[in-house]
Every structure is written in C-alpha cells, then in structure tokens.
C-alpha cells in the first residue's frame, strides 16, 4: 500500500517530458554559452558591475529622470 502512488500513477509521460525538457534546455544553454562567437559578448558582460554610470556634469542635472 505504501507504494500506491507509484504503482497507480499512470501519467508516465509527465516525468519523461520533464526529463526531455531539462536535457534539451540544458544542452541548448551549453551550446549557446560556449559558442565561440559569443566569447567577446560575455567578456564584455562580465565587466558590467565594474562599469558604473559616470557622474553627470552640473549642466546636465536639469534632465534628471
């Protein structure tokens, strides 16, 4: 009786679909991420925290948004 849920659970496609989605997405991420042509972009992206916006000159303060 303890294994009732497992024994009677008849939606076998659910875990299978989950696994396929997981493997497919993960493979796609690996491919996109390690694609040679993307290296430069990701290198630039890694610098975003270090490239803060610069302080504005006093003349531009009126355009604050």
């Amino acid at each position, binding site marked *: 009786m303890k294994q009732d*849920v497992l024994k*009677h659970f008849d939606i076998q496609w659910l875990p299978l679909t*989950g696994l396929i989605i997981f493997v497919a997405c993960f493979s796609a*991420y*690996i491919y996109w991420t390690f694609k040679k042509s*993307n290296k430069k972009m990701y290198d630039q*992206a*890694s610098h975003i925290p270090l490239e803060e*916006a610069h302080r504005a000159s006093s003349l531009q303060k009126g*355009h604050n948004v």
Partner: protein
Amino acid sequence: MSSPNANVPSANRRLETFTYDDQIVKWFVIATVIWGAIALLLGVTVAFQLADWRLNLGLPWTTFGRLRPLHTNAAIFAFCGNAIFAGIYYSHQRLLKARLFNDILSKVHFWGWQLVIVLAAITLPLGLSTGKEYAELEWPIDILITLIWVVFAVNFFGTIIRRRERHIYVAIWFYIATIITVAVLHIVNSMELPVTLTKSYSLYSGVQDALVQWWYGHNAVAFFLTTPFLGLMYYFVPKAANRPVYSYRLSIIHFWSLVFIYIWAGPHHLLYTTLPEWSQTLGMVFSVALWMPSWGGMINGLMTLRGVWNKVRTEPGLRFMATSLTFYGMSTFEGPLLSIKSVNSIAHFTDWIPGHVHAGTIGWNYMLIAGILFYLVPKLWNAELYSKRLANIQFWFATIGLVFYIVSMWIAGITQSLMWRAMDDAGRLLYPNFIETVIKIVPMYWVRAIGGTLVLTSFILMIINLYRTAKRGKPSEEAVFEAYALDDSSLEADSSTHRKLEGWPMIFSVLSLIAILVGSAIEIVPSLMSDKYITKVSAIKPYSPLELYGRDIYVREGCYLCHSQTVRPIPHEVLRYGKPSDASEFVYDHPFQWGSKRTGPDLARVGKKYPHMWHYKHFYDPREVTAGSIMPTYKWLFNQKIDYSTLPAKIAVMQKLGVPYSAEEIQTSVEKAKAQATEIAAELVQSGVPEKIVEMEVVALIAYMQRLGVDYTSMPAEEVASEE
C-alpha cells in the same frame, strides 16, 4: 563616460541623467542589522534551552516550541530577507543604470516587510502557527506577504523596464528566479482554509501536505537563502575585488542548472517515509546532481579573487566574502551527501541536520551579508570603515563559533544515531530508552550554545563597527549620474538567440518560471493526485472533536519541532516504535505533523502506550516520568480552559477539506468533546487529580496523544492484506 552597451556605437545616442535611491538601501541595511541581532539572540536562547530545560522559564511564550519558529523566521525572512532587499536594491540600480521604479513602492515594500516581521514576532510566541516548518505564519500574514512580494516584484521589474543597460547581468537573473520562485512556493504551500482570523487548516493532508511542505521548505533554502545570495555574490565579489567575475559563461551554466535541478530535490527531506519510492529516489539523484552547479558557483566566486588574495588578508569585506564562498562549498557538498539514502538514514532526525543548516545560514549567509555590509556601509554613509581590527576580531569570533556549532552537532547527531540503531547479538536494542541517547549528547548542546554565543558576539561587534562607521560619515549631495538611453539605437546587430533572450527580461522570467514549474510538476502533480491513489482504509477514522482540539494544541506548542510522527521502515525504528508508517494513516491530517527532528522520541505509535496519568505527569513535569528529560514543562495546559465554542467551526472546515464528518457530527461536536473529556478526567480523578481538570486543555492534548497510531496498529491483519 558611461559604458556603452556591447557592440553598440555611442554616436547619436541620447544621454540621460538620473539618481539612485540609496535611502531605501540604507533603511534595509539598518533593518538587517537590527533583525540579525534579534534572530541570533533567539537562536542562542533556544540553544541554551535545549542544554538546560529550565531556561524555558515555564511560560508559554518563552518555551522552545514557540521561540524556535520565531528564530527560524527571524533568521530567514527578517535578517536574510532585509539583507537581500538591501543588496538587490543597491546592485539592481547600478547594474541597470536606473533609479528604482517607484519611491513609494520602495517605501511600501520596506514598511510592509517590517510589518510582516513584527506580526510574526507577536503571533508566533502566542502560539498562532500553521504547524508547517518555515511557513508557520497564519493566513492573514500569508496574504500580506504575498502583497508585499508583489510590490517588490513590480518595483523590481519596473526598474528593468526603465533600464539603460541592454544586457541583464547574471546577478539579476538570480534575482528574477528568486522573485518568481518564492512567489510560487509561498502561494502553493500557504493554501489553507481559515477557521478564524488566527486559525486555519492546510488545504493538503498527510503525504500530500508533506510533499508540498518540503518542496517549499527545500526551495525556501534554495530560492531565499541561495539564489538571491548568489546574485549578490556575482555583483559584490567583483565590485569588492575590482575584478570581473572569473567566468561569465560558467555563471550562466551555474544559473540554469541550479534553477532546473534545485527544484527537483525537495523529497530528499522525506527519505524512508511513506512518500513514494520513485519520488524519494528522484529527490536523491537531483540532490547529488546539485554538487555540480553549486561547486561551479563556488569556484567561479573564489576564482574571481585570483590576483587579489593579498586583499583578502587585509580587507574585511573580501575576507568575509571568501569565507562565505568556502562555507557555501562545504554546505553544498554536505547537503547532497546527506540526501544519499544510506547517509540520510543515519543523519535524518538528528542534530547533524541543524549543524548542516547552520553551516549554510551562518557560514554562507551571515558571512556574505557581513562582507556586503562592509562594502555598503562605508559607501552609503560616505565614510571609511571604523576599524579593520574590530572586523578581524568579529571574523574570528564568527568562524570559531561556527566551527563549535558544526562540530558539536556532527558529534551529537552521529552519536545519537548510532545509539538509536545499536543492537545486541539477539537483535535487541542496546539503548531501548530514548532518554539514554539524549543524556549522552546534552554536553554537545552546551558546546553548540557557546558556539552560538560567539557568533552572536561577532554580530554585536559588527554592529558597533558599522554604527561607528556611519556616525563618522560626511554628508554629501545626492549624486547625479548619466548614461545613454536604451532605445532602438542601442539594439545589437548579429546577436545570438541566448544573447537576445538576456535582453528580454519578461520572456526570460517566463522561461525561468517554466524551468521551476517543470521540476515542480514532476514532484507535485503525482502528490496532488495522491488522494486518488491512496486507498482510504476503513479502520482509519477522523479525529474525534476533542482529539482535533488536542491536535491544535500540539501544533500551537510546536511539538512537531522535537517529535516526529512517522516510523521509517528501518529495523531499529520498527523495534523501538512499532509498525512502519503508512500513507493511509495520514489522510485526515491537516496539516501533517511528521516533523524533521527527534529531540524527543517519535510519537506515531504512542497512542494507548501509557495510561492517561503518565501523560498528565509528563506534561506537568516530564522529569516525573522520564528522569533526565530535557522537555519543557507545560503547566499552563493545566490552567487554560478548553474553548469548546470553536469546535463546530473547526470540524466544518475539516469537512470542507474532505474529512468525512457528517452534519450531525458538527452539530454534536461540543457534547461529544465534553463526554470524552469527562471520560479521560474520570480516570485522572481516580488517581487523585482535582475534578476541575475536565475543563483544562491538557485533557484535550491527552486525548490526541492517546489516538496516535491506534487505528492503524489495531487494524486486523486481513484488512491490511485486503487493502494491499
């Protein structure tokens, strides 16, 4: 000049000026240190209470069962929550080169969150609890949390829409995953039906409730204590080290694999329970798989410090960050290890688990928060750090305190587990009295409490340091910044699909949602359908009105924090407690009360094991019947009267939840409860107890205790066979 977006020429682009809302960050920083000190003080209090029961003070609102949920909620949602918001609001604005979407929303977010914390601080000591770990707050507060979270989400995503940086940096991905997943977790796990303003019952029961709860519990750790902190790590470690993250590509893989895998791993909290075997195995496999992304993140963080290790020695902020990453690596190694079934059979229900949890919350969360605060406070208050020396003393207090904590809990957990399972050659338990295994590890509870005190001391030192730093700050004008507007001219040519995806935050959010829902669906759909498959055994009856009332007292006093109610199919547990638990036993349990720790013995088979008088004495003073017990006294149960007037409403709600109470049972619930109370009291009075006991809460609790496991264990063998 502001950084141009990747691959986009800056010519002909519109330059805009803007300011950052750092006031809200300051507020969240202040809230972080205040609530952090309170959370740690509560932690130290409950640690000492476990070492010496007298420190429970004999008062309802100072007893372990009520203070422990307050400690966990304060540590997770008040301390870590405020730190997350401070860090996110600071980094989000800078990573997007935009002021927060709406100042009023920011203020509503801040004060709303503090209101949630204050309400928790009031209701939990009063015993107003749902009885689900880390989700104890009652339904009106749950609704308030949802509203405040929506305010946070609107403010967060609104800022993304107004951004001036095309690329959504990886830290923000982690924030997005946090916001979406926490919302899903909170809403699904908090589904409950109210009885009154301060009482509700979980929509789920038994196995179903356990699965949903630990899907929530596990992922509350993942998406409240891990993903937002990883996002903060990906911003603040590069900033403090003044170096870009070691591998941005690794951070992307880290993100997607963590989001996909973490959500699948919840069932490892319920190994050897009545949870379906396949679900337990799934949880175990994915927990082990978590090693990879977790260590990927740790390596990425630590390698970001390459070339600046000398600064780790001299800069307190970096030192705390490096240490937090090391503890992150350690606890994410230990977590999967504990999810392996054979290891879990040793560690589960023991002190090894709180040891593991605190390696994460103190080693990873507190240390990273300290690192972030040492970075933020000097910047926000425009001052030099008051004392590096004080920060170093704080570091050693925290580290040594944590080592005391972890090592003592390893020793206590493994010792007790080995004692539980020790058998002689004839197959009899060597330590049949549970209390023998408790007395043995009490010295380790003292070591843990001392370790906690050191951590608390370190935190106080940090508060002094940060306060002095802020006090010496020089007032400065609000800075105005400039950056290019994000319009069509900033679009990148020749960008890859994933690159484009990274610039579409809403689609990205939907994909993150799908990622977590895929994992959740595999776990939760079978569980939500489980009532269809779990046969309702005719011998298992709903609780009587008085037993139900007693069960509510059990939940109110937080008994589930020290006692489990599930016997695992492991030889020594069957020898000690009796028949292994079965899914059908719990179909009427809203909420389930399996627990996660055995500071005291399992209670699944305690019904009819002892006479009423034994329980009476036990609740009055546990040492009267169990010498050496560390359980608090519950003397107020002997003075507080049963409020029978609430019973019809409670049973009517249970009926709505599917428990087969008839209309007649609802109508007669008060008379039936009084009749059962009279029956129990009569036996007690015969032993010399005053007659007025019939009106008191202890009688209801005894009624509940005497019912536990009785239906299932007394079921005729032929009925068991036919059901199977």
